[in-house]
């Protein structure tokens, strides 16, 4: 019998010398899972000059930070990062390992799962710890990995019943970030970097990464347009409304694919998940993949010419009409209220 633990690990992703939001979200979620599991929550950070980041994880509930620090590890590289993490996992046998479903999270996680022969579920939208009966066998405290599948048409609960290590990636913005009032008095465990020839197979020639320009996740109001907006030009109307009511402009995948709005403003399963106070969906039919990213908004106004559009199934206020007349009327009505 292989050794198993009740430990949850969160792989910490760096972004411009800070911790990526998704990693803090995972620590926040990991804290709750860890309470249920009755184990320890640990953060794993690979990089250079990262002690401060390690301490930051204690504010989100990590009880221990495993730190691999070396000047050669300054920037993310598949190798050596995945090799280091795989070796740590094989040595310490955590029960659960969580990664952000970012480009680099989706680069490292499968490699590590492949190396350690662990189960890995991509892009989970919820994680729970629960007892499960599977194939007439009872399992205690399994990680339920809940994710949309089949283009979002089904929701699947995946389990890793007979494997000691359960891994999952989670998209940014899906879990809520919650900071502790009082940070944990955590330990920093330093692990030396042991070089390997394969670490040199890939070199970074150049890296260009913008600061995140758009922060949809924090916007209290989002005005979002779909393919029904018709053109990039018409999207300006949404921008005008958003500016007026203090919101951000977003779009559905169809609107992004059509070039009406930039990709970093995409809401939905393959974009950002948002839960603003108000979400105004304009000319969005409401495909499941879009709704998965916004259906937890506190209030939803849907504007669509098609009275049967699926978006109306989840909205609070339904307006049947053409955006090009409804939005200007809305803007005018709002301005009147301000007078």
């Amino acid at each position: 019998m292989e050794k198993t633990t009740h430990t949850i690990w969160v792989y910490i992703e760096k972004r411009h010398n800070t911790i990526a939001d998704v990693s803090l979200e995972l620590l926040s979620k990991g804290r709750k899972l860890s309470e249920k599991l009755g184990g320890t929550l640990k953060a794993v950070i690979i990089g250079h000059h990262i002690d401060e980041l390690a301490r930051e994880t204690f504010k989100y509930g990590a009880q221990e930070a495993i730190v691999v620090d070396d000047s050669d590890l300054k920037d993310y590289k598949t190798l050596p990062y995945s090799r280091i993490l795989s070796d740590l996992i094989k040595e310490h046998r955590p029960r659960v390992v969580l990664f952000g479903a970012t480009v680099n999270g989706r680069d490292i996680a499968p490699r590590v799962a492949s190396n350690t022969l662990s189960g890995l579920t991509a892009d989970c939208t919820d994680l729970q710890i629960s007892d499960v009966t599977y194939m007439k066998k009872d399992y205690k405290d399994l990680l339920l990995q809940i994710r949309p599948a089949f283009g979002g048409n089904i929701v699947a609960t995946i389990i890793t019943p007979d494997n000691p290590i359960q891994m999952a990636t989670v998209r940014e913005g899906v879990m809520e970030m919650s900071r502790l009032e009082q940070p944990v008095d955590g330990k920093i465990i330093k692990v030396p970097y042991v070089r390997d020839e394969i670490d040199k197979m890939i070199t970074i020639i150049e890296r260009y990464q913008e600061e995140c320009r758009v922060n949809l996740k924090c916007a209290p109001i989002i005005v979002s347009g779909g393919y029904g907006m018709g053109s990039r030009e018409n999207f300006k109307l949404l921008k005008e409304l958003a500016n007026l009511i203090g919101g951000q402009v977003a779009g559905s995948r169809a609107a992004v694919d059509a070039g009406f709005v930039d990709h970093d403003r995409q809401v939905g399963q393959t974009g950002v998940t948002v839960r603003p106070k108000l979400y105004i969906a304009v000319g969005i039919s409401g495909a499941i993949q879009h709704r998965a990213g916004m259906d937890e908004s506190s209030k939803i106004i849907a504007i669509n010419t098609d009275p049967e559009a699926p978006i109306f199934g989840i909205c609070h206020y339904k307006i049947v009409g053409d955006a090009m007349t409804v939005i200007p009327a809305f803007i005018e009505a709002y301005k009147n209220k301000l007078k």
Partner: protein
Amino acid sequence: MGYNSIVLVKQVPDTANISGEVMKPDGTVNRAKLPAIFNPEDKVALELALQVKDDMGGKVTAVTMGPPKAAELLKECLYMGADDVILITDRKFAGADTLATSYVLQKVIEKIGDYDLIFAGRQAIDGDTAQVGPQTAEKLGLPQITYTEKILNIKKGKIKVQRQIDGGHEILESTLPVLLTVINDAAIPRPFKAKKAMAYKNYVPPQWTTEDLSVDIDRCGMPGSPTKVHKIESVVLSAGDHEEIEPSKAGLGELIDKLMNDHIFG
């Protein structure tokens, strides 16, 4: 000389275009009715491999793992210009998760042997996991470059690639062989060549089963898959409680009042 490529391709149900015809009366999708298509990013991966061949010579081998019906997909690869195709099919491979799939692909690629580049789509639209490429690279002990946007050059046994990262891109140089996973923006797949389509019309792609590969059966298919589907719920389109607002001045004015009362506005 030239560079030999292996391209991993998959036939997938067209989940991106769900029409009314495949919806069941209860609002769920009838998956059996979805048409089977060439996974879009795999087609782009094949295109990149063919471009390498056009520019530098070499051979392109397309591989798919799936039911016998997936032979259709391999014929499409031939129509586009692939030199060789192999269908990996065996009931014992059924029900594989990404780990079990990558194990079989490792064995397949080791058997093919002579390669410099392995291409795959970043992810397949039926699962959207993006795991099989990296998992296969790990098992082969190869470097990988995921989210490939562009191949900048290949020379002296090295390849320079631009890949997408969150909020930007990076340029990496890798030794060969390397496994690349490719995003949609990387290239536009070429159309079928009429001549090839004629030549391969009745072609039956060679099949490899467990007997052709030195695989441990316990690591294939369902038994080799650590992840299991515990529960599946169809997403049902249902009408919730909502209030209909007249798109008139009065209607919109009342709505704005409500939102102001709820402290959402103002």
